[in-house]
């Protein structure tokens, strides 16, 4: 069966189309003012990528903070449910799922069948999500990818005291004034962020294997800091930001339950 999943996130709207567990196409657009237009645009991109017509999709499930905006969805799932379904399909051996998105972080413990055992969420505070690293990259006047890369070359652990994105920006600026190397500041940013995510994950109990998903999983600097903090390696899929949409699509097709 061909099904689609849509993840209406805080920053991006992502659509994934699959057939019998095989990904046919994906589409992602930056969320702007007009949610309806963003949703349509993300669908158009995914259908173009898949090279199929819209009427071929038999079922559509929605997830994400704005899932209720998707009027023609057959059903909707919470992000936690969609994350668990997507990860269970990609990594059946995973027992812990960490999802770090632009505005929210989640840790989910799943059982052998991929069912959610319990979860913890960091929300409504930029310090616990991708918005934090974005703000720090801005303060350092470098693109986010660069922030991740130079973090890997850091030779010194510098503590970061601010636990707020706004205060963090000021702290980064004062570190720059104190002539702290940018790569060490980058690592400080990722270490601070990783500490917060790790302790959230500890509340559900970190059991291997651990899968890391969400847009922030593409930040190599953050991944390194998180692995150091968790003292284990995490599994990251190719398109970590599409896992929720994948989960929704699999749930729609009945492949995941």
């Amino acid at each position: 069966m061909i099904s689609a999943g849509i993840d209406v996130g805080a920053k991006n709207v992502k659509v994934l189309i699959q057939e019998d567990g095989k990904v046919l196409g994906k589409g992602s657009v930056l969320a702007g003012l007009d949610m309806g237009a963003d949703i349509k645009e993300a669908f158009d991109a995914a259908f173009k990528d898949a090279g199929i017509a819209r009427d071929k999709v038999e079922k559509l499930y929605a997830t994400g903070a704005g899932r209720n905006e998707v009027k023609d969805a057959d059903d909707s799932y919470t992000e936690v449910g969609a994350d668990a379904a997507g990860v269970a399909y990609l990594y059946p051996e995973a027992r812990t799922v960490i999802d770090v998105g632009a505005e929210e972080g989640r840790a989910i413990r799943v059982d052998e069948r991929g069912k959610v055992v319990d979860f913890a969420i960091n929300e409504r505070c930029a310090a616990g999500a991708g918005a934090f690293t974005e703000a720090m990259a801005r303060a350092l006047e470098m693109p986010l990818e660069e922030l991740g890369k130079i973090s890997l070359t850091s030779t010194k652990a510098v503590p970061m005291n601010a636990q707020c994105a706004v205060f963090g920006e000021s702290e980064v600026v004062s570190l720059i004034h104190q002539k702290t190397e940018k790569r060490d500041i980058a690592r400080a940013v990722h270490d601070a962020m990783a500490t917060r995510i790790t302790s959230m994950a500890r509340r559900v109990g970190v059991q291997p294997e651990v899968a890391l998903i969400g847009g922030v999983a593409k930040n190599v600097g953050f991944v390194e800091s998180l692995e150091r903090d968790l003292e284990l390696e995490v599994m990251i899929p190719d398109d970590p930001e599409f896992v929720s949409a994948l989960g929704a699509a699999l749930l729609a097709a009945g492949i995941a339950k």
Partner: protein
Amino acid sequence: MKANYGYKDGSGEFFITLDTDRCTACGDCVEACPYGVLEVVDDPVDPLSDVQVAVVTEAERKKIKYTCGPCKPVVDRPPLPCMTACPEDVIAHSW
């Protein structure tokens, strides 16, 4: 005195309240906390006295939601070590 250490941010309220009038500065909570959140010092808000009280360390005040996290699992939450250790019932957590 009720000393509230911690914060409120978008994600919620996270305060450790210490009733310093009952605190005897015995230090049992300091020993019990696995993460070094508490310490016994000269009362920081009563500079003219020589009384010692338990406080949340300066380094931890802005991150107790995270530091205390492992003692607060989502399910099957056990009693908190700091609260259990205190003989005078000084400590309360808001979350």
